[in-house]
């Protein structure tokens, strides 16, 4: 099968082109060893199937970022039959700078010129025929977001492959032309160094101080000679042009790019105010900018929760209406009652109903929310607004070792004070290009108050702080930000010490996203989440269920009591509660809970909270249910609710409740979030780190609160 790779600048319409070519029929994967995303699909040319790969969007092909390394290694090692270089006609010069680097790789290429309409609005007309003549490549006009020019592009690809059309080599500046042949000859002698890479490219990259290739030079025989030659070449450049090699090479490439763009493009009325500039004057304004941002984030939540949870806009086929979330819940409730009807073996029923259905159902009920969240985030991303949010927030977040774009993940995770979910939050860190920034944000995001922590907070607040509910919620909101920012700050101090990542970011021209593009993006990410729920999360739920169910209790005692209480409904409920409690107490989770008390009592938790907190590792709302079971002992169930029950316990007080609240806020992310963390960081190391780090941090804070509180209040 033929391989077609799509390469180009970010925001050049690469992904649009990919979707148009493949019809959204795609599969998302990761490049081996790194977290850079890899999208692959298929397109047919003359009835033959071709593999299409969307390379990460980059401005260059250096060794400084994972994306750029991946893009260049792919082009060389996987040797695609043709590389389609997408060019944004409204940013011709910078796009051709990237083109020059692809040309250096000496591979069959096609230029797909996109956004000519936008360029025309900016007063730029591009002569595509001339561009083709000068570069020696096929040039095709496309309108990627509307799928125009696809047939022509396919034809050009086919011809380029069949005739093996290579781009014309670029003659750089005199100074470089003097040096390059000599270096080329030296490196071409070493198969180890060049491999499949063209010698000229290797020579240029070495001049540029490319760390990846320099490492190889160190290892090979005769490497020292090459290093010496490099050193003298750099000196020569400095003497002749008064520039260091890195600048000289970049200047040579930009020289080519601007020369070419002057040849093929005609610019009229340059300097005219563009619509984007006018929008930026409001959106990036010192005073209005932050206000607009708050408004847009508020709308994001309003729409997401409205469409997913509050508005009942789906028919329930019974004459009524349901929200998508209710629809999901109804489905799993139906499934649960079906299981109760058909399965008679108690342990199997318990596993299927409580372990699988309620576990996976709980996770799946977030699917509508996650879909709409992704949908609106994709809208914000595609319009170009996210880059502005990063611009506005960067300074503030940098204090804590994060960067501008981190704010989105924190907000989606529940940073606005309730609602939200860390799963899409963690997944939203994908817009962070730097790995360290991404890991820091991924670790900080789960501290936010997500929707699942809310019912637990509500219960504890109702029990102990009923007179100041609003103030408590506000305090918890402040604390969640304090936790997240402090954790990031600590990690920057300890784990990623002294490493600052450059923040040179393009603020793309605003444009209207297409419904199809946004939908495909949101749907792709939602599918990934569902796939995880059906596999890893399911397994984790079954394990946690087993911990809380086995080894079980001798039920003869309870059966006897049930027989004695025949007909007395109240008594029967009480016996059921007692049995559930006895089972929980005797379970592995119960034993672990008891074993942990010597440590956890420092923060005021006894074995019952310990079990609930272990259960909460599956999903935070489980804490509530488990505490309900654990404290139902001796009560007759129906009359007293959990807040009243807790408030009436002699050994419970505000301090204990508060320490527990703080711990629940901070401790290990739920199973679904951990899976998302694994996905985004690509490493189990960071997943385990996140769970341990947040638990330790939350525990230390809770112990301090509890111990200091006791000194003051007793």
């Amino acid at each position, binding site marked *: 099968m033929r391989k077609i790779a799509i390469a180009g600048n970010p925001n050049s319409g690469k992904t649009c082109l990919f979707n148009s070519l493949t019809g959204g029929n795609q599969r998302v994967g990761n490049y081996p060893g790194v977290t850079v995303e890899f999208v692959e699909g298929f397109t047919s040319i003359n009835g033959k199937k071709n593999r299409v790969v969307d390379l990460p969007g980059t401005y260059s092909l250096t060794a400084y970022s994972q994306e750029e390394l991946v893009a260049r290694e792919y082009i060389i090692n996987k040797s695609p039959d043709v590389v389609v270089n997408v060019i944004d006609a409204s940013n011709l010069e910078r796009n051709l700078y990237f083109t020059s680097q692809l040309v250096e790789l000496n591979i069959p290429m096609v230029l797909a010129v996109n956004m000519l309409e936008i360029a025309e609005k*900016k007063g730029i007309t591009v002569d595509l025929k001339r561009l083709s003549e000068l570069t020696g490549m096929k040039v095709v006009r496309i309108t990627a977001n509307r799928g125009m020019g696809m047939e022509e592009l396919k034809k050009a690809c086919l011809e380029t492959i069949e005739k093996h059309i290579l781009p014309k080599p670029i003659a750089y500046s005199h100074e470089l032309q003097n040096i390059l042949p000599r270096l080329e000859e030296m490196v071409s002698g070493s198969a180890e160094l060049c491999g499949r890479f063209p010698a000229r490219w290797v020579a240029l990259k070495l001049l540029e101080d490319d760390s990846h290739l320099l490492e190889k030079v160190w290892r090979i025989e005769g490497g020292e000679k090459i290093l010496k030659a490099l050193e003298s070449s750099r000196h020569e450049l400095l003497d002749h042009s008064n520039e260091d090699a890195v600048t000289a090479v970049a200047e040579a490439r930009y020289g080519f790019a601007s020369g070419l763009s002057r040849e093929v493009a005609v610019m009229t009325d340059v300097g005219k105010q563009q619509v984007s500039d006018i929008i930026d004057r409001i959106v990036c304004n010192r*005073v209005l900018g*932050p206000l607009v941002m708050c408004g847009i984030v508020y709308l994001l939540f309003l729409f997401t929760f409205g469409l997913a949870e509050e508005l009942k806009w789906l028919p329930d086929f019974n004459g009524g209406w349901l929200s998508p979330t209710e629809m999901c819940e109804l489905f799993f409730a139906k499934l649960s009652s079906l299981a109760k009807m058909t399965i008679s073996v108690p342990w199997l029923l318990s596993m299927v109903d409580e372990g699988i259905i309620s576990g996976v159902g709980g996770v799946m009920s977030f699917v509508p929310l996650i879909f709409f969240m992704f949908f609106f985030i994709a809208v914000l991303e595609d319009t170009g607004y996210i880059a502005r949010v990063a*611009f506005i927030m*960067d300074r503030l977040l*940098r204090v804590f070792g994060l960067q501008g774009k981190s704010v989105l993940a924190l907000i989606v995770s529940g940073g606005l004070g309730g609602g939200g979910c860390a799963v899409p939050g963690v997944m939203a860190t994908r817009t962070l290009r730097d790995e360290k920034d991404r890991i820091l944000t991924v670790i900080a995001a789960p501290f936010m108050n997500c929707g699942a922590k809310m019912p637990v907070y509500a219960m504890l607040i109702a029990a102990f702080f009923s007179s100041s509910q609003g103030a408590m919620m506000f305090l918890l909101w402040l604390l969640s930000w304090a936790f997240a920012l402090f954790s990031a700050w600590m990690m920057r101090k300890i784990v990623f010490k002294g490493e600052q990542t450059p923040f*040179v970011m*393009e603020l793309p021209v605003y444009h209207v996203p297409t419904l199809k593009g946004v939908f495909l993006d949101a749907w792709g990410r939602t599918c990934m989440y569902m796939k995880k729920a059906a596999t890893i999360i399911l397994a984790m739920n079954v394990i946690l269920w087993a911990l809380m169910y086995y080894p079980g209790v001798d039920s003869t005692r309870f059966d006897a009591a049930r027989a004695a209480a025949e007909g007395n409904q109240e008594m029967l409920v009480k016996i059921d509660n007692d049995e559930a409690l006895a089972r929980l107490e005797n379970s592995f989770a119960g034993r672990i809970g008891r074993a942990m008390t010597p440590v956890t009592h420092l923060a005021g938790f006894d074995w019952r909270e310990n079990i609930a907190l272990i259960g909460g590792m599956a999903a935070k709302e489980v804490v509530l249910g488990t505490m309900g079971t654990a404290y139902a002992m001796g009560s007759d169930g129906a009359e007293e609710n959990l807040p009243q029950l807790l408030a009436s316990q002699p050994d419970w007080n505000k301090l204990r409740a508060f320490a527990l609240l703080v711990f629940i806020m901070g401790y290990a992310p739920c199973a679904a979030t951990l899976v998302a963390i694994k996905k985004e960081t690509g490493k189990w190391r960071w997943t385990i780190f996140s769970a341990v780090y947040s638990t330790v941090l939350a525990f230390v804070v809770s112990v301090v609160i509890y111990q200091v509180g006791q000194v003051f209040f007793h």
Partner: protein
Amino acid sequence: MNLAEVPEGRKVKVLKVAGARDIKQRMLDMGVMPAAEIKVERYAPLCDPIHIKLKGYSLALRVSEGRNVEVEYC
């Protein structure tokens, strides 16, 4: 004078780009290089990063990075 000292709305020409290797390379890749003409559009609400315009597109870069770019008015 460096880029971080230029007031909003002024146009400058780049003389030299210094700084750590990766940051410098990134700036060069984005077109911030000797002889490039840059307009400082605005500073963010907390006076950092800087929003600049060059070759027809917009970039945001931090003040700490702007200090590595030597410029003169044009």
